[in-house]
Each structure stands twice: as C-alpha cells, then as structure tokens.
C-alpha cells in the first residue's frame, strides 16, 4: 500500500491555509475516501459535503489539483506516484469552512424560473423521441461545477445578471417539454441573461453527467430568444401590438 500526500485547504470566510496530510492508498480509492481518512485519523472537524459517494448526488464538488471535480469520482490512481494532491473548495462561491462553500445563491435563482406549465386540457401522451431532449437536462445532479467554471460567474462574478449554465438548461428543459405551454424567452433574456454566455463551453467540459449544456441547451435557447426579439416579422408585430 502506497502513501499519498494531500494538501487540503483549511479555513473559513476570513481566510485559511493548506494543511498537509499523509494517507495510505488502497486499490480503487477515491479522493473522498482520503478525506474520510483524514477526518477519522487526523482532523475530525474537516468540513466537506457529501452524500451518495457514487457520483449521483453532486454534493462533493471540489477543486482537485486546480481542476473542478467530484471528490467521490476522482480516483487516487489517476495521480502519479509521489504527486502531491491539492484539494480546494470550488472558487465561484464563498467559503463557509474548509471545502464547504455557500451555494445558496443557486437555490434562489432556481426558485425564480417559471415552473412547468401544462395546458388545462392536456392529454398526457408524450413520445420517447420528444422527451429525450428534456431527459438529457434532467440528468443534472446539481453539483454546480458548471456554475463554478463559467467565466461570467467565476471571473466576473456577474451573479446579478447571469443565472449560469445550470439554470440555462433548466429553462431549456421547460421550454422543450412537449406539453409545456409557457413562453420563457423573455425570462431567459431579461432575468436569466442568456446573452451573457459567449459559448466557451467550459461548462460542458466539466459536466460529470456529460450533458451537452452549450450545444443542446444554451445555443437553442439563444436561438429561440433571437427568433422572438430579432426576427424582423416579430419585430414588426411587436411594434404594431405595442409590446
């Protein structure tokens, strides 16, 4: 059994520092196991969120060697022998303690998105090919790593103007639901700031569920918004109707 060196951020909103730990490595072990070892043997108060330990709940998002990752999914054998492994909290959200950040903003944004709205006399028939687009977005485990790597949120901190990739696909999912009758294009443009996304696809790259956030979610959403606001015919109609 080899021994790995981890340097883990310990601190809170006031600041902190790296602390080094040595952890024995067993076959198939993941970084979250190493953090459990630290809790049980060195520092019982090391704070990390986790739930399922099977990459299904999206709780243990951290930055491992600078790369946003689920700690439960990052295997220790992906690091070279003797390589020091750093574990930091995700950067786009304020630190509460150690690896735990304040992600409450996401829950506030989520609540603002107009819910699924079917017609009153809906007949509940939907075909597989029609639900698949929505099902892709509904695989989202809300790890918020896409929010974490989005330039608009991470580098420019424009949480006031842009809802972020996670919520772009939530809006897209509602819009693409075969039985939904609400129009969320104005919401997507005005409230959620879909125009801020400049399609660098960082969100797609980091998604642990392999959701094509940009190609299947944000770009079609942008197109719908464009259709509404910049299509000459719609523009004329809006002028006439005074909307």
């Amino acid at each position, binding site marked *: 059994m080899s021994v790995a060196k981890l340097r883990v951020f310990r601190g809170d909103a006031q600041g902190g520092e790296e602390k080094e730990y040595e952890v024995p490595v067993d076959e*198939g072990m993941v970084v979250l196991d190493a953090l459990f070892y630290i809790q*049980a043997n060195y520092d019982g108060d090391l*704070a990390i969120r986790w739930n399922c330990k099977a990459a299904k709940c999206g709780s243990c998002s951290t930055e491992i060697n600078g790369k946003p990752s689920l700690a439960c999914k990052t295997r220790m054998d992906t690091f070279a022998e003797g390589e020091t492994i750093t574990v930091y909290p995700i950067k786009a959200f304020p630190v509460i303690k150690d690896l735990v950040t304040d992600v409450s903003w996401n829950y506030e944004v989520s609540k603002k998105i107009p819910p699924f709205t079917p017609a009153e006399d809906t007949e509940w028939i939907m075909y597989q090919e029609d639900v698949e687009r929505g*099902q892709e977005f509904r695989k989202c485990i809300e790890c918020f790593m896409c929010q974490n790597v989005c330039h608009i949120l991470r580098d420019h901190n424009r949480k006031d103007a842009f809802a972020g990739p996670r919520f772009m696909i939530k809006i897209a999912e509602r819009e693409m639901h075969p039985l939904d009758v609400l129009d969320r294009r104005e919401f997507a443009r005005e409230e959620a700031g879909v125009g801020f996304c400049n399609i660098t696809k960082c969100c797609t790259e980091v998604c642990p569920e392999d959701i094509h956030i940009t190609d299947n979610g944000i770009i079609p959403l942008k197109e719908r918004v464009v259709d509404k606001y910049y299509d000459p015919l719609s523009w004329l109609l809006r002028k006439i109707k005074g909307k």
Partner: protein
Amino acid sequence: MEKYETHTHDVIVIGAGGAGLRAAIESSAQGASTALVCKSLLGKAHTVMAEGGVAAALANVDTKDNWETHFKDTMKGGKMLNNWQMALYHAQEAPERVRELEYWGALFDRTKEGRINQRAFGGHTWKRLAHVGDRTGLEMIRTLQEKGIHSGIDVYMECTITHLIKDGDRVTGAFGYWRESGKFVLFRANAIILATGGVGKAYKYTSNSWEYTGDGHSMAYEAGAELIDMEFIQFHPTGMVWPPSVRGILVTEAVRGEGGILTNSEGERFMEKYDPERMELSTRDVVARSIYTEVEQGRGSPHGGAFLDVSHRGADYVKRKLPSMYHQFMEFADIDITKGPMEVFPTTHYVMGGVKVDGETCSSTVPGLFAAGEVAGGMHGANRLGGNSLSDLLVFGKRAGAGAAAYASGKSHAQVSAELVEGFANELREPFNNTQGENPYTIHQDLQDVMQLYIGVFRTEENIQEGIDKIEVLKQRAETLKIEGSVMFNPGWHLCRDLKSMLIVSEALARCALARKESRGAHSRVDYPESDDEVLGKLNSIVSFKDGAMDVATRPIVEMPEELSKLFTEDK
C-alpha cells in the same frame, strides 16, 4: 444558555427525501404553515440514489395488472406480516401518485403509445415499474423539489434535528442545530412528520448515504413511540464488491429486470436451485441469501461475489437502459458491463421496520407525531419488493401531510420549557467540553463491524447475542466522546449525535432479531430455518422505551377483512 433561533409553524417535516417533500407539499396544500427541515442541501437526500423505478399498477405495458395483484404481490413479498391497510392504500393509490408526478413535470420513459413505460422487477407479477433509465429517484426528487419550492413551504437546509419536544403526551416541537454555524434552533409546531429515511450507516457495507443514521427511529423511540418489526432489514442482493472503496454501492435490480443473469464461479446459473420459477427476478431476500450461500460454499467470484451479466442484451441497449450502471462500473472498477459480467454481493439497503403508524393518517403512537417513507414501519412486512419504496413514499408522504395538517388545524402552540432546551443544548455540547473521551469515528467503525458481522444476512442465537453484548460495550464507550475544533460545520461533532441514534437502532435490530425464533423474509435464522406461519407469522415485534431501557414485545397482527383475505385463497 447561548442564544438560539425560534421558528413557529403548524407542521414541521423532518427530512427532504421523497416522503418529506411529498408530505410538505400536501401539508402546505391543506393550508398548514409548513416547514421542511433537512440535514443536507435540498435535492441531495437518499431518494436521489433510487435507480430502478417506482411500482404502480398503471397497466400501461401489461394490461392485466390491477391494484389487487399489486396488493397480493406486496403482501406475499412481505410474508404476510405487512400492515394490510397500508399495503392496500399503497396498491390502490400508487398509480395516481405517479401520474401526478407527470402533471408536475416529470419525464418518465415512454411506451410506443406515448404512455409511461414500465419494466419487470423481482416479485412483481407484471411489468410494473415506471422509470427513467436507471435514475428514477433523481427524476422523482427533482420533480418534487420543483413542486415544493413553488408551494409556499419554508425550507431549512443543512439543519439537523436532534430532539423532539413534548407537552404531556403530545409532540409540540423539535430542537436541533444549523450544520453550518453550529448554532441551535428551536421549532415550535403542532404536528411533526418524520421522514428521515433509514439506518444503513450502522453497517460497514451499505448502499446508504451518511444521512442514514436512524435519526427518526431514535427520536420517535425516545419520545415514547413504538417501533415495529425492527429485525427486518433488507440486504439488497447486488451491491458492488470491488474495488474495496466502492464496496456496497448499489447495482440496480433493473440489471436483472432487463435480463441480467447471475452465475457462480462454475458458470452455473445458480438461481435455478433456489427459485426455478422466478430465477433472477425472485424477491430480494431470496436472491440475497442465494448469492451469500454460493460464496459461503466456495463458488464465489475472485473478489467474493457472484457474477451478474447483462452484456448479452447488446451495448446500445445496456447504455440506454442502464446508463448509470455503465458509468459506475467503468469509472470505479474499470469494467465495461456491455462486454462482460459485474461482481456483486448483498449490501445493506433498506429497513422494513420503523415507527409504527396508522395507515390512514401515518400518525404514530404519540399524538402529533407522524412518520412516512422508510422511517415508518409496517408497509413492507418482512421483505420489501423493489420499486415499492418509491411508491410508498409518494402514497404515505401525501397521507402523512394531510394527516398532520388536519391534526394541527385549530391547535394552539404550547410553551416550550427553557430548562428542557438548555438540557438538550448541554447534552449536544458535551463532546467539546470533555477533556477525555473516545473518538466518535472510531466507535462508528466498530459499530459497523459489529452489525456487519453479527446481524447480517444469516443469524443464529449465539451470534446475535454476541452482537448485543458488543453493542452494550459500544454504548458505554459512546457515553464519553471527545472532539476537536469549533462548532462551525464540524462533521466530528455531528457524528456524536448520529452515533447515538445508530446505537439505538442497532440495539433494536439486534434485540428483535434475537426474539424472532423463525425465518421470515429478510430475517434468516440458521437455528430456526423454517417459517412459523401459525404463531410467529401472526405476531409483530414491538420496541418501546420502558423504565429507562429497551423493551421488546410482540403483538398480534391486525387480521385482514374477508374480502381481502379471499384474494389469497382464490389463488390456491
């Protein structure tokens, strides 16, 4: 004492998995001011991990299905120990509860005709499980979460409830702490719904998350409520075996539902010996025992499990129907399940036993205290069928919400004694003040070893008694715990109280297992291998807190009315 917040609501729901969310939605819809209090962030509860599907006799695929058949399957699967009234409501109401999710935006997989698709599962006569690939739980929790946040519910996330408060006989509040700040919080309420899930973290190998520490079971017990049939804990037949760090993680029954075949090291399809009729789709208790026996008798896979192979269904089909399993094995075990078999072994999965409730309203034996979902007992009897937990939490979540809202209506809030609250606070802070004491993580690991070893798939009087003796020692050791650090987001401190809950449920499990001298469903006694249908099969185990100790008694089951018992004799 230090300052604490107070919140006042008509109804408090503790736990935000499927049952808690469904209960809160209903309670709020009935006009009650409703709070939902959960240990994790919203949407992370254990329901998120449910994979295979939700059982409901929609009859979309097998048109002969109906509630009578679902009711019979459930009772037979539970070895007739189930609370028949719960099994009846469950079978009758599950279809509407599932359709309701669709009305709220859920996107289930479809049949060719555009209806909700259904798949086969162990113990179900017909194809009955509505599903979304193998991530049905995620779909359900997102749908309920969405409905919930637009239902006027106050959500208190990352808040742990540690004590229930009573005024005379009646429950009037709950006390706990914010995980983030470590500060205390008091909830005053006229009704409390426990929806805290199960107890699997008392075991070393489990499919359950850290939250499954039996909080609701233990708080109900301490508040004087009865627990029922605690000896029945389900070992899911197929948990991952290798590598060690993922041992116990669930391999969905949908693998077998989609045609997966179990074999031993000799290439023998061994289920032919144990249940030739149903084979891999036998009930979970039978399949778990069969795999265990094969390994015990030296016919196990290299890492001590059985082989489970679904690769004959073709790579495209497997990836479409079992995407999570495909990724899980690829990423954690370097195994491509479209090309070859998985290795599986039973893992602690679900507790059938729980707070004894009335099927109509989900009220416990303590006025004002309700329970729904896994924390409630009775619905599944001695063994739960796959898919019946997701339907259980919808049906009884709604019933508990309605029951609690009706009970709370018109009642005025009781005063909470400051002395009582101070006592709770002092108890919780003790591990910070102790200059000497045990590390809670060490005791937790020791408890997990004891439960794994002594209260497992097969049991004997001797090993259960040894387990109880060891639990007694652990209880003594856990009297004085010591932890480091501050009150802010301190997992070591959080574990101190969780450990107490796990010790209570572990003791209840062990003592009930000792008392039931027969084999029934998930409870397999090597020294009493037969089922005693005449006497013991007609008795529920009842656990209660009496004179400062745990009391285990039996009580006759409630007999079914004739029009229902007739359903079973017609079969013969």
